């Protein structure tokens, strides 16, 4: 397997990250549902009056108050779950977006002509193949650029040694550069 194949086949997400996210999500949902169950249990286990008519009216009242009870409890459930899941998603997004943000910043630097550095990811960052592929691209471009410059500098060195063959050496170097650049399309 060559380096490119290795990078392309590397997992985008760690299995531990995905299973951890799912487990925490399920735990949040289970906890929220359990709290909702206990709240309903507290509300609905209040004893009924002891008289026949008292029970009748208490049940009728409860059936008419059921809508607001359910509305507010569902709203509270959704809000609490929303905040908990949003917190989990922010943590996960932080791990996913780290690589994207660093690469985007590096590309912007390259576009504006600033010196390019390799992208280093944090220990728990996801999208590792993306960072590796970016570094491979930059390394290949810089290696090629160095080869083009080496061809020109080599011709200049030969020029100093043998001024008579200077022009021929430089033209050879230009031919070599043209040939090296021809792989870019």
């Amino acid at each position, binding site marked *: 397997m060559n380096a490119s194949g290795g990078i*392309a086949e590397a997992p985008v997400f760690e299995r531990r990250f995905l299973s951890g996210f799912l487990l925490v999500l399920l735990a949040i949902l289970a906890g929220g549902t359990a709290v909702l169950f206990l709240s309903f249990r507290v509300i609905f286990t209040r004893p009924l009056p002891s008289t026949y008519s008292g029970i009748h009216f208490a049940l009728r009242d409860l059936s008419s108050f059921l809508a607001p009870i359910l509305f507010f409890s569902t709203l509270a459930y959704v809000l609490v779950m929303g905040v908990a899941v949003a917190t989990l998603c922010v943590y996960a997004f932080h791990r996913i977006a780290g690589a994207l943000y660093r690469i985007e910043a590096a590309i912007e630097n390259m*576009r504006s002509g600033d010196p390019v550095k390799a992208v280093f990811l944090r220990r728990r960052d996801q999208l590792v193949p993306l960072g590796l592929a970016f570094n491979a*691209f930059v390394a290949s471009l810089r290696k090629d650029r160095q080869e083009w410059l080496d061809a020109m500098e080599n011709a200049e060195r030969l020029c100093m040694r043998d001024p008579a063959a200077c022009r021929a050496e430089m033209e050879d170097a230009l031919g070599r550069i043209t040939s090296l650049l021809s792989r870019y399309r």
Partner: protein
Amino acid sequence: MCFTLAIFAVAALVAWCFHKSAGNSLVAVSYQGHYEFHNPYEIIGEDMAGKLAFLFLGSAAACLLLFLVLVRRIRSGVERLVRAFLRSAEGDLSSPTSARGPRDIVSLCTRLDAYRSQTLSQIDAIRTEAADLKNAQPPPDEFARRWDALKRSIRTVAP
């Protein structure tokens, strides 16, 4: 946001179903053998537990589905980007990345395509100038000036 919306949809459905069934049970019991019950939980407890179990399972299933869709979209977008970087390393700077997936990935694809296009223009200019300088046979002073300019242009590629 989409996880919260999914939870909200399932919770609203469960609340509506529970409201209908529990309301009907309470009214029916209030007219029938209500003297047998000590609290409302004895009437609607079983229904409530079933509905809350459905709430948990429904929310979990909706979130799992969303999670799988999101992971698939991110993975597909990232794999495209990785392939684009690897193709670029092999010299292909013109095939578009064909951005898809979440907004951040599409934005990165657009920037990458812009950088690849800019680099290809630089390389094309260098290639043309190198070929021209080799074939045009300019006088020595002009050759030296253009040679230096070419070196400066090369240095601007991935500085």
